[in-house]
């Protein structure tokens, strides 16, 4: 039901049941918010969205109060502005004055609020608290003194990621966001997904930066500097730079990376293809055998850590194949060192990804070959963009270049790995191609491409039955287990921690709404469809590659190159 309410002496239309805030926003009236997150229930904690409602003694939070027909609202009266301003001033009173050095400088909600509310002096002085920096983790850094206790990270960790590593600790003035028994992040149940970083309005939670080490190696001539990037990266770089992605953005990115100083540029997608093919092989084997336990895809490093700490019984069902980044990494070092006659440790290998957990993944003991890391440093897309800016590279003036051999080609399918359900789709399509010689119709996969946090489907390639399940965000996990408990059997289970998949990774620019996310997903599917290396063509290429390297080389037959292991982790859950 529509009705009109008075706002700032003007009539606007409102809908019954909506909040004051949503009515205001729809009518183009902006008021600041801090603790609010779209698609979450309002908590009313920050009090920044307060408005004056005639007849009410106190100010009212617009984010939570439903509109009523009689309402006469003032959104920017002196009283309201004073309250908002004082609230932000209170936050600033003990906030460290380090904006210039802060990782979120110029990209900080608190900074923006202070500017919007025209705060130009430190009117209220507060006692500063200790920085409380926790950089024990490989992916996420926590800085207590910058925290404004809006509670977004706590809620995301609990409601979206469902791991609940973070919560409010203590009470009153001592309240802070912390972990169980105040442990450092690397000891906790944190799975490094970085969703908390994405919602943090300040620099209190941020991604661990590896730019400096990359820079150092880039200027060191004793090393061969190589880089790999995943299919999402070129699109995301364009998005981050604020330009419309040109058609040959992949090639341009190669050029940029070369300009930065990398000697060779490779594609993580090649690793993805190898993984998908191997997984398809394994599934085929499993459908032949009577083994009915599902195969859990282990490509999402956050999910792998989650399984290691929480699902000990499931570890044996986890695919032992390395994830794409690590496959590519280990191939780079093995093949290149042989080709060029240098030691593997002379190769400095960097990976650019949309994911924060991959920083952790690259540091795992099980991701080393003979004591040498498969990948030395992992940069997020946002770090890469910083590097591009740091080296003053003119993107539009950069000529496109091809990636370097031998990991220079990826299939269209490998792009799909960036979205939830994509790996499953690729495996099934691969099997279709193997058994029927033709690619499957994309329409078949509608059910696993979208539709909630738990999706399932059944396929019959060449008369075989393949049941798959996709868990899009850990909140879908209970439903998977309900389904398994009720007797359902799956051949493939794909779990992605970030809802939507890698397109929603914390290494990318934040998706402020579900619409943004949908757009990214759409972009991925479009890229896949328009890519020239469709399954048929690519299969030939991969066969070539296999023949040339994988099958011929004694070294590469070593299982450790492509395979890894998982072990139970004892953390305070």
């Amino acid at each position, binding site marked *: 039901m529509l009705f009109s309410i008075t706002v700032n002496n003007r009539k606007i239309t409102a809908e019954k049941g909506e909040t004051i805030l949503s009515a205001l926003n729809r009518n183009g009236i902006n008021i600041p918010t801090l603790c609010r997150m779209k698609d979450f229930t309002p908590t009313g904690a920050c009090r920044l969205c307060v408005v004056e409602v005639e007849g009410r003694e106190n100010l009212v939070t617009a984010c939570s109060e439903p509109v009523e027909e009689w309402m006469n609202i003032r959104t920017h009266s002196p009283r309201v502005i004073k309250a908002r301003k004082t609230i932000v001033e209170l936050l600033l009173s003990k906030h460290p004055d380090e904006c210039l050095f802060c990782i979120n400088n110029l990209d900080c909600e608190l900074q923006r609020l202070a500017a919007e509310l025209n705060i130009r002096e430190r009117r209220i002085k507060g006692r500063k608290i200790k920085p409380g920096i926790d950089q024990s983790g490989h992916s996420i850094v926590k800085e207590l003194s910058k925290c404004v206790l809006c509670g977004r990270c706590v809620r995301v960790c609990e409601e979206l990621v469902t791991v609940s590593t973070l919560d409010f600790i*203590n009470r009153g003035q001592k309240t802070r966001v912390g972990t169980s028994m105040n442990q450092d992040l690397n000891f906790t149940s944190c799975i490094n997904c970085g969703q908390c970083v994405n919602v943090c309005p300040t620099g209190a939670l941020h991604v661990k930066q590896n730019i400096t080490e990359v820079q150092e190696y880039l200027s060191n001539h004793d090393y061969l500097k190589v880089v790999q990037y995943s299919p999402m990266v070129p699109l995301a770089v364009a998005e981050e730079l604020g330009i419309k992605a040109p058609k040959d953005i992949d090639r341009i990115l190669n050029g940029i990376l070369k300009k930065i100083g990398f000697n060779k540029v490779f594609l993580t997608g090649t690793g993805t293809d190898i993984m998908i093919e191997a997984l398809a092989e394994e599934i085929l084997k499993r459908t032949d055998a009577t083994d009915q336990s599902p195969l859990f895809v282990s490509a999402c490093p956050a999910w792998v850590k989650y399984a290691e700490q929480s699902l000990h019984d499931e570890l044996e069902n986890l695919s032992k194949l390395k994830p794409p980044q690590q496959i590519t990494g280990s191939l780079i070092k093995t093949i290149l060192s042989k080709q060029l006659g240098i030691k593997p440790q002379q190769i400095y290998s960097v990976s650019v990804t949309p994911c924060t957990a991959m920083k952790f993944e690259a540091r795992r003991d099980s991701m080393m070959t003979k004591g040498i890391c498969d990948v030395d440093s992992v940069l997020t897309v946002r770090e890469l963009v910083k590097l591009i800016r740091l080296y003053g590279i003119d993107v539009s003036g950069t000529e496109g270049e091809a990636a370097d051999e031998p990991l220079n080609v990826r299939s269209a399918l490998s792009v799909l790995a960036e979205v939830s359900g994509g790996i499953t789709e690729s495996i099934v399509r691969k099997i279709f191609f193997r058994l029927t010689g033709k690619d499957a119709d994309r329409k078949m996969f509608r059910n696993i491409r979208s539709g909630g946090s738990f999706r399932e489907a059944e396929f019959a390639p060449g008369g075989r039955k393949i049941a798959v399940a996709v868990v899009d965000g850990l909140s879908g996990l209970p439903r998977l287990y309900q389904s398994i408990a009720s007797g359902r059997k799956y051949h493939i289970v794909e779990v992605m921690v970030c809802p939507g998949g890698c397109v929603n990774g914390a290494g990318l620019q934040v998706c402020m709404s579900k619409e943004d996310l949908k757009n990214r997903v759409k972009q991925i599917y479009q890229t896949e469809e328009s890519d020239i290396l469709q399954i048929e063509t690519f299969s030939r290429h991969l066969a070539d590659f296999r023949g040339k390297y994988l099958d011929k080389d004694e070294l590469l037959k070593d299982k450790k190159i492509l395979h890894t292991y998982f072990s139970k982790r004892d953390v305070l859950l």
Partner: protein
Amino acid sequence: MKKNEKATDAIISRYKAGRRDDLIPLLQEIQEETGYLSEEAIRKVGKLMGLSTTKIYGLATFYDQFRFTPRGKYHLVVCNGTSCYLNGAGAIVGKIKEELGIEPGETTRDGKFSYELSSCMGGCMHGPILVVNGKYNLKLKPEHVQSIIDMLRKESEKL
């Protein structure tokens, strides 16, 4: 320590349903029995309730009652009610802090002392009040704190 673990298990077994609203009584019982909430106890309660231990730790730190280190051999409670404050309880707390070097809810390294503040005990005519292991010390002055602590230190050395 084994004894504490057994006691914890026994208490947990009485709360099999694992209902969230039993969480605080359960923690209270464990603390009453074992004197504090150990990491192990929190882990067990988390498992029972299907809750992350962070949630339990976050909850427990919200409330004054819960502690995460064993109580000291001598547990001091200072009444921090209004009347006691007006009669100088602030100085008593300051003195204890200075003497023991710990905050309320903590335990000294040697495990001898711990202290906490309580809300009004209702002994307003006798403030400030310091309770040592259940024994009331009334109308206290800061210098009494010194002698009480000295005495307790001596006593514990003798044992």
